[in-house]
């Protein structure tokens, strides 16, 4: 499984307009709805579930990244939206630092193995210092896409 397969084309937001967590989540769910990865009629439910999940425990796991996620029966295949913030967003992160890079994952409800593999792929990449640093400097969706391809290329094995 590779990042480039997970990230939905058209759901890369190189500059989030929102400066707060809830707004960023709305922008990212809307981006996924815009490309059909989230059924538009369930848009509000997705937003509510992601935010509810964050309130129970932040997915801002430190190092300036957050990985909000939701499983929903209407999702057919896993998709990731990427949102970048220049100013940094308060995600109530574990290390109390602002978040600059958000990977939002939507998964089908009944495929826990795939969900865990997707999280593994996301974390494997986000744990690389250079990948995080270059992402923060990316100015366009194309920049982000090339970084994903490059990072995937560096992976060894399947």
């Amino acid at each position, binding site marked *: 499984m590779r990042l480039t397969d997970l990230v939905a084309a058209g759901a890369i937001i190189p500059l989030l307009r929102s400066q707060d967590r809830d707004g960023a989540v709305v922008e990212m769910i809307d981006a996924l709805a815009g490309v059909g990865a989230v059924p538009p009629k369930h848009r509000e439910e997705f937003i509510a579930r992601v935010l509810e999940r964050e309130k129970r425990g932040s997915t801002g796991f430190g190092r300036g990244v957050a990985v909000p996620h939701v499983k929903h029966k209407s999702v057919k295949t896993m998709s990731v939206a990427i949102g970048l913030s220049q100013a940094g967003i308060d995600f109530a992160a574990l290390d109390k630092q602002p978040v600059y890079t958000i990977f939002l994952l939507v998964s089908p409800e009944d495929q826990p193995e795939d969900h865990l593999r997707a999280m593994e792929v996301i*974390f494997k990449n986000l744990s690389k210092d250079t990948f995080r640093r270059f992402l923060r400097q990316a100015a366009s969706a194309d920049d982000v896409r090339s970084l994903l391809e490059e990072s995937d290329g560096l992976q060894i094995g399947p």
Partner: protein
Amino acid sequence: MPTASAKVTIVNRLGLHARPAMEFVDMANAHQSAITVKREEQSVDGKSIMMMMLLAATQGTELEIIAEGDDAEKAVEALRALVAGGFNED
């Protein structure tokens, strides 16, 4: 330095997803011992959520929990019980 270890199997249906991984890390951090978690040849720091997510431990996965420090035995037992209890999930 006292060390202790235990093997344990992931029993909850959703596996070691973010919430249980966080519970594990919190409990690991509540102990002074260094905690290592092994899945086959892969070894990660049990006090780091980023590292724990790399295990992609699905239901049925066997993990080895290794602690090194004065409270090693207590730490291993607490973590083993947490995993074996399925993190209070189904």
